Structures are given as C-alpha cells and as structure tokens.
C-alpha cells in the first residue's frame, strides 16, 4: 500500500517549522506506524536528505517515548493505542496523513517530532513519590491493601508518561498525568502520610511549568493510550481541596530531606 505523509520538519527549538510532503510506497498493512517512518527515513537517507527525528524505544507501547499527532489526534485514530502499536491496516491505501509533534508550551520542540517532556519529570521530582529510604521498609504483608484499592491504584499507575493527554487538551493541561500519580499513591495506605503535601507540591510544579488549567473537556482520557480515567482528576481536585483547606495547610517544601 501507499500513503501520503505531511510531516512536520523543524531543525531546532528556535527554527521555523513546516509540513513537508512525502509519498511512501511499498508498505504493508502489518507494518507499525513507526516502521512506516523507518521506511521513509531509509528513503530520505538514500536520497541524501535528513531523516525525520522522532522519539521511540520499546515499540511495544510501554516506555512512553513515542508519540506524534496523526491527523489531529495524539497517537492516531485507534483507541488505547500508542503510535508504535498503531498498524497501517487501520489506514486506507493512498490516504493522506498529517504528522506533527505534541503541541504545548510546556513541551518545546527539540527537532522535527521530538519534544522536551522534562516538565513531567520535574513534577514527579516535586512530590510524585513515597518517601521510603532503602532498607527501612516493613514486611510487605504487614499492611493489607483491599484488592479494590490496589486494582484502582494500578489503573492509575499504568500511566506511561507519554504526554498525549497534554497534546490532546485544548488548554495543554497536565491534569490527567498529575492526577494519575496523585491517585496511584493516594489510594494506597503507604501513600497516606504525604498525601496532602504531595498533591500541593505536584500541582504547584505543574503550574510553574506552564501547563494550562483543566476545563473538563475529557479529550485527555480519549487520547490516553492506557485509558486512564478522568475520575482521577476529580480525586485530585478533592485531595487538593482537602489539603489547602485543612486547618494547617501543608507548606511547600521537600518532605523527604535526608
């Protein structure tokens, strides 16, 4: 099969970008979308042109490295599917596709389809953890966790940090990403001691990074390759409210000072 691609090319963060049209032939429906880009890059290099830069690693939908907006949709048209797991059998022969990077102020373009998502790392650094020094843990079965809570925590913990939620949101909000981590840790008994400080610190960092606010569009959930529910955003709001309205609101500081 054949596809017509309009790929966003941008030499660097400060450079001006634009779409470039490529026709790629000799494709098969079993190829993944990244394999399509592999084929395109081989053709470009054979013509001594610069290949398209894109992030990718595991190619099995778990590392969260890949991600591009395909025809206006982060990770393309398939439900619960990362770009690397999207196969060409879901496109028509000859179809035209527009391929562009995540667009968000907090995710500046590095080159072509590669963006800088280090803002996510800084949000986790601000509080997305449970403070437990190596060696200080109690026996694993000492604290039972109701199966329902553990399962719900796991639903949230599945987030792969790809950033599709931000790319899908009209406000470029990171609420689903932050909510997933707040809920994951807040649902477990081990996460209770830092529950209030965690949510306050993570939200403050999220705001500092320049992500937008949540206005309940729900686009994030639709784009999320792990189908993380916006119910967790409600949980985040509840935790945040409880934390800041508490008689002694948590101060913004690192709770884990060694």
């Amino acid at each position, binding site marked *: 099969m054949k596809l017509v691609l309009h790929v966003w090319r941008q030499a660097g963060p400060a450079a001006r970008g634009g779409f470039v049209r490529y026709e790629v032939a000799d494709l098969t429906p079993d190829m993944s979308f990244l394999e399509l880009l592999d084929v395109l890059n081989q053709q470009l290099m054979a013509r*001594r042109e610069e*290949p398209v830069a894109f992030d990718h690693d595991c190619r099995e939908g778990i590392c*969260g490295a890949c991600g591009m907006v395909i025809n206006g949709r982060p990770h393309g048209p398939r439900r619960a*599917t990362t770009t690397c797991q999207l196969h060409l059998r879901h496109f028509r022969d000859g179809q035209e596709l527009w391929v562009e990077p995540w667009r968000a102020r907090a995710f500046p373009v590095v080159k072509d389809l590669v963006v800088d998502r280090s803002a996510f790392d800084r949000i986790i650094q601000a509080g997305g953890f449970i*403070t437990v020094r190596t*060696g200080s843990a109690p026996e694993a079965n000492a604290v039972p966790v109701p199966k329902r809570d553990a399962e719900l925590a*796991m639903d949230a913990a*599945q987030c792969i940090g790809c950033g599709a939620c931000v790319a899908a949101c009209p406000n470029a909000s990171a609420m689903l990403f932050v909510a997933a981590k707040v809920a994951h840790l807040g649902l477990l008994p081990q996460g209770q001691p830092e529950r209030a400080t965690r949510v306050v610190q993570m939200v403050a960092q999220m705001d500092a990074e320049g992500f937008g606010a949540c206005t309940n569009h729900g686009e994030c959930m639709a784009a999320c390759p792990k189908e993380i529910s916006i119910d967790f955003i409600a949980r985040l709001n509840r935790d945040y409210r409880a934390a800041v309205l508490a008689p002694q609101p948590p101060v913004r500081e690192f709770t884990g000072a060694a």
Partner: protein
Amino acid sequence: MELDPKVPAGPLAEKWDRHRAELRLVSPANKLKYHVIVVGSGLAGASAAASLAELGYTVSCFCFQDSPRRAHSIAAQGGINAAKNYQNDGDSVFRLFYDTIKGGDFRSREANVYRLAQISANIIDQCVAQGVPFAREYGGLLANRSFGGVQVSRTFYARGQTGQQLLLGAYQALSRQIGLGKVRMYPRTEMLDVVVLEGRARGIVARDLVDGRVRSYAADAVVLATGGYSNIYYLSTNAKGCNVTAIWRAHRRGAAFANPCFTQIHPTCIPASGEHQSKLTLMSESLRNDGRIWVPKRKGDTRPPNDIPEAERDYYLERLYPSYGNLVPRDVASRRAKEVCDEGRGVGPGGRGVYLDFRDAIRRLGRHVIAERYGNLFEMYERITAENPFEVPMRIYPAPHYTMGGLWVNYNLMTTVPGLYAIGEANFSDHGANRLGASALMQGLADGYFILPYTIGDDLAGVRPGAVDETHAAFRDTEAEVRRRLERLLAVNGRTSVDAFHRELGRLLWDRCGMSRTAAGLEEAIAAICALRERFWADVYVGGRGEDLNQALEHAGRVADFLEFAELMCRDALHREESCGCHFREEYQTPEGEPQRDDARFGYVAAWEFRGVGEPPVLHREPLAFEAVHLARRSYV
C-alpha cells in the same frame, strides 16, 4: 589480568552477613565528597543512584532516553521472584537459590546466587513501601503466580506490567533525590567511553544527544547499569536503543567480559510478520501458566487451529516433560519450538510459529478469569496480529530477549578495573547459562538497592575523593578519541545504511550463534563478521552532523560496537565445547536432544581480555566450585 572473585569464607548461608560486617565504611561526614557516576536508569541504575544518594554520596546519573523512566526495564511483563513462601508451598531461600543455579545449568557463582535469594524478600518489602501496586488477594495480602523451571508459586506481579511498576518505584525514589539536589540527572546523554587512569576508573566521556557535544565527567567510581546486548541480533524483544556500547567500551579499557555467548532466546514472542519488522514483542512467560503449547501432529497441516481435532494435536512440552509440562525453562521451550518447526510442523507464515492455546483454560476457569489475568497481554497481541486470543490460539516463536553474559564482576560487583562496577543485566553474575523467568527484575533491584550501596563503600574508603578532575590529560585524550571516532563514522559517507548493516549482522548471528550452534557455523560467522566490519567502515552512510540531534549517528556508533563484540560472542561460543542452558552446541547433546554439559572441562566462567580489534582475546577462567549443590544433569521430565 587476575580474576579474584573475592567470595567470602564461611558457610554459604553466612557469607553475605559476615562480609557486610567486614566491609569498610565511609564516614557519613565524608560521603558527600565522593562522586559516583551511575550510567543507566533502569531497575539497577535507578535503584543504585537513589540508594547511594540516600546514603549521602554525590551522584550523577546518565541515560540516553529523554527521561530515566523510559529505561527498558519498563517493558518487563511477568513478575519478580522472592522467597517469601506466602503460598505455604515449601519455598525457602535455599529453594530459590537452588532453582536459579539449576535453571542456569550450573554455570553461575554459588555465593552470588545465594545472596540474591536472601535479598529477594527485602526487595518486595521495599517496593510495597514505595507504593508498587502488586496484585493482591481478596484478603488484601499479596498474590503470587508460577513461572517456568519452578514448582512453587513465588512470583509477585502487577498485571502484565511488573517491570513498569517496579521501575516507576525506583524512578520515583530517584526523582526524589534529584529534587533534593542529591542526584544530578543527565537524560539524552550517552556514555561513549570510560576514562581509566593508572589502572582505576576515573570517569566517563559522554555525548549530549541533543547538541552533540562530547564532554568528560570525573568521578571516584563509575557504575555501569547499561543492560544487555540482545539487540545484536537486530530483531529482539529489547527496546530499539538497547546496546552493548557502554560495557564494550569498558571491556576495551580493561574490564573482562564473561560468558558473552550466553544469550537467552525467549520462547513466547509474537512471530515476525515480514521483512520490514523492526523489533519483536514478547508475550509474558506467565501465559504458560494457563496456555497450552502445541503444533499439529502432521507436517504441513494448514487447517485453521480450531478445526484440528484434539487427537491430531501434539502438546509436545507436556509429552516430553510430564512433570513441568508447559512450564519448562525458557531455553528448553525455545529449543523444542525450533525443533518442531524445523520438522515442518510449525504454523503461521513461513511455518515459524507454534500455538499457545487458552481454550481449555477458558473452559475451566471462565473467560473473565483469563481476562483478569492476561487481559492486557491479549489486547497487545490482538493489536499487533489482528487476531483475538480468546477465539483463536496465539502464535508464538522464540526471540532474543536477555543476555546472561556481561562484564565479569567479583562478589562486590566490581569489574576487573578497580572503581568500575557493573550491575543488573550488564554483569554476568547470577543467571549462569540460562535465566529463569522473573529473576531479572530481582537481580537488578538486588544489585541496586541492597548490594552495591554496601560494597562500593569498601572500595571508596581506600580512595582519596576528587583526586582527579576533568582537566587531567587522560580525559582530554579519551575525549579526543571519542570525537575522532564520531568524525570517522560521519566521514565514510558510503552507500549502505546503518540499519542495513545491523540487519545483516543480526541475521548472521541468529543463524550461527542463536538457538543452536556448531563449530563450523561459528567459524564461518567469525570470518563473515570480520568482513562485514570492514565493509561497514568502508561503505556506511550516516549523514547529518555531529553537533546536532542525529539518530543515525547514535545508531552507527552502537552498530560499530556490535560488530566488534559479535566476534567475541562467537569466539566464546566456539571455545565452549559443551552444551549448557541456552548454549546448545549440536555436537554435544544427549540421545534425547538435551544439552550435554562437560563439567570437567567447562565448569568455569569464561572471562575474556581485550587485545585489540581483530586480535584474538585472551581467555581467563574462573573455576566454579559447588559446595552446597550437587552437580546434576538438569532434568525437567
């Protein structure tokens, strides 16, 4: 080169405790003055960097990915072993130790494996405290499942994403230290060489993958947690970025490389669908708990699987190994799959596949139970193949997955270069000639959380902190070498892409140094690799510039190192004139087709010393003494 394993004296069960009591300590006031570099941010690297920073050391951590959370440990699916005996089925530290030694076909170091089994329980405690959402029973306590090569249920899991959850636990611990300013993180930065001065590792040279700048980083110790080299086969279950560069560069600087030919071919992967295939996807071994593996009894039977009646199916693992059945170790399952396909009984395109069938489990347990256990794996399979495993059996075929070989390390996890450590998959220490399922996560975290943080202090206590900085000539020289090599790669400007060379190397190794090996095949492979390497340096096309984000240049450097390392892998396979675990030499097998070990001649770790590209490496032997286990022929019948 001298190999001193530094295994402590005393009874096996007391070695680690005694050793810890004897290790020198760095005073808490002085730890901050010591700078430790950790390369890699997977389970081993992230846990080590976090734990070292918690202790008070100054730590720098490097990864080539855009975030430490993306290291390939994230893709581990099935689980992590621990001798908790929560199932009351007779598990113990000794049994986990024994299963691991036996599973590795008696080619690992007893003392290391015993320590691993001892520590396994602490890892689960640590991870639960971090908030890893392990699967639980209705009473709220932790659940377990079974894995291959074992008759107890000791594997802890978080759906089919155990590696992801464990890595996020370690990543969060690491992130906390980054936030506290105790760890400096260098993402999108690739280590390209180790700096060795007067016999001691003093730092690394790394390239910033965004702006292409090559820089030096001095330290008092360097820890390599850079994973395995399965990508040498081109098609493997590893992430595309996984490579041998860090440990190969360390090897070139004096670190012995142990058992390079011990490469695990995992039995349950989704078969390749065509020439364009860029990587293979694993289907967790846990599926073998409930799935039954079979092929048609008749050759060339092309009927759809559900039309083949029970009497015409060959459940060959259950037939050959009645007591372990579908849960035989990986090397056995892979070899038998290859065998039935070679007989012409394989299924799917090209006849390279066998069925993994859940029909009986669905009938017995109900669809909802199977969906709860494996739902995400079934979805993943369907996404790739467009076939629904609830309706038709999965098709699976073996694929390169893990490498037991790696840098030789002593009991303290130090390589033959003082101050240079290797942890996790990057070292050779615990899995012998075959790794059991759910043991990689255990080893990575044992090394990073509970072994290295203790043993490194013993070495640092004898070193003056900050003795050398980046202005030293050794750094300038190594940097210059790294730059010259990058320039050379760009200067060839030939006609063949890096990818084409990588594919060719992969095919060659898969055929000659994969699931079965022969002396003649390996000799041919060595000659072919040398020729390919010459062709690479004469005809590779990289393109672009060095001072830019240049993914073709990154790949080229990695493939150039694979081309050097491949030769060592084949030489190791050629010299080992026995079959053990994954290393199956066709010349050495029992009448039943099982590997025939030769303990008298090859009961050792083969540690190779580098003597130059194209020069024969020097073999050093670490004899393996077994005190606690009886050297038996591995049997799973």
